[in-house]
């Protein structure tokens, strides 16, 4: 009889330990949620203020900057995706970016979350893909406070640009474009 009590007692201990673990997980989840919430707070932007930034085009295969005044990162990125103006094209500026519009541009701390449609990722050629990424990343990094770009495909994380396989995860910055991350 005493053994049965001991057995029940041990089972009870295991049960309590499990509950405690659940509590811990729940607490951890709450912590994670609060972290996520704080990360989602975007950098406050004064919409009346204009920022000095650069749009990067391609000229004779090289990436070259053109000065712009913009109000928000979205405005900057959308201008980039619209391509060079008629005057800029006459001056020999090209863009390697496919003719698509970003789904979303979100500024989160020092990161730009750039959600692009699937067709954006149809571009091929190492030179072309490298210059696409350079145009986007250099342009975004010219906006105050931006240090990296996180690429998304229709709202989902994407780890690699298909085809040649430029590694995009976890984010792309000037160093990772040149393969220098983690060195």
């Amino acid at each position, binding site marked *: 009889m005493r053994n049965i009590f001991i057995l029940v007692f041990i089972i009870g201990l295991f049960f309590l330990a499990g509950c405690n673990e659940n509590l811990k997980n729940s607490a951890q989840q709450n912590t994670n949620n609060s972290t996520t919430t704080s990360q989602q707070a975007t950098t406050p932007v004064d919409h009346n203020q204009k920022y000095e930034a650069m749009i990067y085009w391609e000229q004779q295969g090289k990436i070259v900057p053109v000065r712009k005044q913009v109000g928000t990162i979205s405005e900057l990125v959308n201008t980039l995706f619209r391509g060079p103006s008629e005057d800029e094209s006459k001056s020999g500026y090209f863009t390697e970016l496919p003719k698509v519009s970003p789904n979303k541009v979100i500024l989160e701390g020092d990161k730009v979350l750039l959600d692009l449609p699937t067709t954006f990722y149809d571009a091929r050629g190492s030179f072309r893909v490298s210059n696409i990424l350079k145009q986007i990343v250099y342009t975004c990094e010219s906006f105050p406070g931006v240090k990296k770009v996180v690429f998304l495909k229709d709202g989902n994380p994407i780890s*690699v640009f298909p085809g040649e396989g430029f590694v995009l995860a976890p984010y792309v910055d000037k160093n990772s474009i040149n393969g220098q991350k983690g060195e």
Partner: protein
Amino acid sequence: MRYLNIFLFLLCFLLCSFGVSNAEDLSTVQNVFFKTSPNAVAVFVQLQGEPKFSYFRLEDGRIVLNIEQSRILKKGTIMPSSNIVSNIHFAQNTPDMVRVVVGSDVKASYNISKVDGGILISVGSSTPLLSLANGITNEAPKLLPYNYIPEKSQLANSQGSQGNSNLVPNNSNPETSQLKSNQSSQGNSNIYTPIKNAKLIVIDPGHGGSDPGCVANGVEEKIATLGVALHLKPILEKMGFKVIMTRETDRDVWGRPNMPGYDADESELQARVNIANENGAALFLSIHFNACADPSVHGTQVYYYSPQSYKYASTMVNDISKVNPVYTDRPIRRPFWVIKYTTMPAILIETDFITDPSVASQVYNSDYQEKMAQAIAQGIYDSYKEIYQ
């Protein structure tokens, strides 16, 4: 209380005996052998134990054999150099299932049958190729195991012992102790001394199948990369190298379903990496053609990632520059998947820009492909000697 103790003891005994009986039911895949005839290939999966298996065929022609309740001693890949079967992969797919995948022409008939000592996969015949299989099973005890990572120079010997002359590198003719490259039309008089016991080179023709790569001026990159690669393979073999291509036709290297743990794009790239890593390649080369919005941009680019690949990339730039303009006269470092995750010196060549109409008009041309292949082969030859000799 006594009854409770007896009950617990019996429960433990039952659980243990169930586990033991399960372990005893496992069959063991000991090795995989193959033999070719002009129109058929017999693949013999040597097994210890009673096999329980199922099989199906994928849309691209791959035959998938699942051997349930089984373990494999060593996973592996065989490239039989046959028109009917492109490759044979065998590995532990799940902890209790071995999977054998035979890459075959979709039009080729096939048969899978249990035979004495294992399972026979017959490709090119709807009935078991028993006569061919008898050859394998008779020879099996004398054959060297077909290991996943071939030892130096052992691969050619083991292939030779399997009686498959297709697999012996074309360097055994004493008259070819000094081979002149067939670049006479290009005015190039390179003399190759065939490398003795040369290691494996993996050539990866970029894109393929569902991914056309760059498309410009009526040219599809996947066709042009394959053309150069198919010219390159025999040149390297004449130099004494063993060569594996990640694809020899216009197809996806992996296809569907996705590789476990990878999405579709990653699977396609990782499959190429796996071929190089798991076969112990000495050098890896991915061939591509480039694109640029400015149609006047042209010339070759060579990419590398790991520091150990720099010398290889640098030598390649130097050798290619003798036959084609280079857009960038030094190697470029970029994190492309296939050169980042391969473990040996690895480079990605962008042969030229097909967005330049004058380049695009040549890339399907056999002479152009041969010229580029000769230059790339020279780059591999020189790099190999620098790195390994």
